[in-house]
């Protein structure tokens, strides 16, 4: 089983909202001290999905990340978790892309990797919350795709996927090769072991530039965008929170109920 997992480095989405700022004028998210870069959580679920298949029936997993200034401690996490190879599409030309240019570059890199049975992506990335790159890669490569996977079973050259829907889930079957986007219901990603972390430290990622995957810089990154961003801003929320007090927590609970009645909410 040959598997490819697309991962991404993002600003820690678990950081408190108060530490989130946009740099005025640049329309970019400010890198405030104390807020770290991490592997995108949805990408971690995708890595976990691939590792479970590898645990059950063996195989090889290649992770790909795209961007600039990729911190090795961050992008090597899939290796530490048990992935076999890491490829970085690391070049200024890949920077500033949208779903289109990103999916295109990743698809061309996957083509270069060669034979694969399953390509995994997270259901969406925690920065742009678009959820398009997986479907885009599948379309460019002419593969079937199943999105929002909660559970994946592989047998007899087929994937049976529990896909989340608005009212519950559906079970979808597809022959390999296929692309699958993974949702958090798949279950907690494993922690890297000390052995895994040591092995990842020693392993150098393969770095591919645009020419290595046969793409013209005009098709990727900022130049390859189809969507123009006009503005990035933080909506102002103006709420005056009234703290309801009490001698004891119980009394505060009672006062809250009384307050709601008084305010005509109940």
């Amino acid at each position: 089983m040959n598997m490819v997992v697309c991962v991404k480095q993002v600003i820690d989405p678990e950081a408190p909202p108060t530490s989130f700022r946009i740099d005025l004028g640049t329309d970019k998210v400010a890198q405030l001290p104390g807020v770290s870069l991490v592997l995108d959580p949805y990408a971690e679920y995708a890595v976990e999905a691939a590792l479970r298949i590898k645990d059950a029936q063996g195989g090889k997993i290649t992770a790909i990340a795209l961007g600039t200034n990729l911190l090795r401690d961050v992008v090597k996490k899939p290796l530490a978790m048990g992935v076999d190879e890491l490829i970085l599409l690391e070049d200024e030309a890949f920077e500033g892309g949208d779903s289109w240019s990103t999916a295109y570059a990743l698809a061309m890199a996957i083509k270069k990797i060669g034979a694969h049975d399953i390509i995994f992506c997270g259901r969406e990335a925690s920065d742009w919350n678009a959820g398009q790159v997986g479907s885009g890669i599948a379309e460019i490569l002419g593969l079937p795709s199943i999105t929002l996977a909660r559970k994946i079973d592989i047998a007899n050259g087929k994937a049976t996927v529990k896909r989340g829907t608005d009212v519950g889930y559906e079970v979808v079957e597809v022959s390999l090769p296929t692309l699958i986007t993974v949702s958090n219901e798949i279950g907690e990603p494993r922690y890297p072991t000390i052995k895994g972390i040591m092995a990842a430290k020693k392993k150098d990622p393969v770095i591919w530039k645009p020419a290595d995957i046969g793409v013209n810089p005009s098709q990727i990154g900022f130049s390859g965008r189809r969507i123009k961003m006009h503005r990035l801003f933080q909506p102002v929320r103006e709420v005056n929170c009234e703290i309801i007090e009490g001698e004891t927590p119980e009394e505060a609970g009672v006062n809250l109920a009384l307050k709601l009645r008084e305010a005509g909410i109940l």
Partner: protein
Amino acid sequence: MAEYKGVMIYSEDTEGKLAAITTELLGCGRALADDLAQELSAVVVGSGISGLAQQTITYGADNVYIIDDPLFKDYRTDSYVSVMEKVVKQVMPQILLMGQTSVGRDLAPRLAFRLNTAATMGCVELAIDPGSKLMIQTKPVYGGNAQAIFSCASFPQIATVRPKAMSPLEPDTSRKGEVIPIEAGLDPSTIRTKVLEKVKEEVEGIKLEDAEVVIGGGRGIGSAEGFKQLEELAKMLKGAVGATRPPCDEGWVPAGAQIGQTGKIVAPDLYIAVALSGSCQHMSGCSGSKTLIAINKDPEANILREAHFSVVGDWKKVLPAFTNKIKELLS
């Protein structure tokens, strides 16, 4: 060469009736179409769904394209993308809107790539730029920490719209429109996935998205038993129970109870947030609530910056007293 013209919305239904999101799309699509002085059309794809055509007209469409074929009994990416590709190439709308639903999330990106255009996912505001006449698309990003405004110069401009972000029109059964059937003309062997089973996981009682009162619980609730207390309060207020992601991941509540960026979007009259910190990804799913109340022991929790009323204290002590007092007041 023909010109791209008009606004089109992709229709979804729930048990034979237009889905709420579809009436919202029709309301928003109507405004965009009027602004452009162009027509609003709807596309209905499915099996045995001809009854929906008139409903889309009642809610604002000028005409409806209908593809009614047993092949479309289940949503399958290959068949739906192919048929929508055919419809778009035939009708050539300038704008195509879909719901940010499990169908729209799957269909919109793949269709956009197929048609060599681009989609913007999960928009909360759409407008026509007076100068360029392009659609200005606003969507939350960074899990709701920020919003971004986009436009796309390739046609059709595709956007998915978040549930509850737009208002439907008042239904008008006297509205007339043309119903135009389209042949699917699809080779079944090109459909590579098969739906083996469809399972509903709705929580009993009032649907979370429709509830006027929602009690949301976070990681701090600590257990499935804890959520029983929230259910008791919900029952009393004729509301529903929702949760942030951790309780769903822990299995204390079903995955369908998740409210937030990747879960359900709720906009009740009253949202009572219990033992949840108020991460952006969660708030993004409940920020439309009219009154927000927080019970949290952490005075620094983000939820206290967004709530109208709050109690700083341990929910295990505050909530039973609150629930009892409400029981007394309501009786």
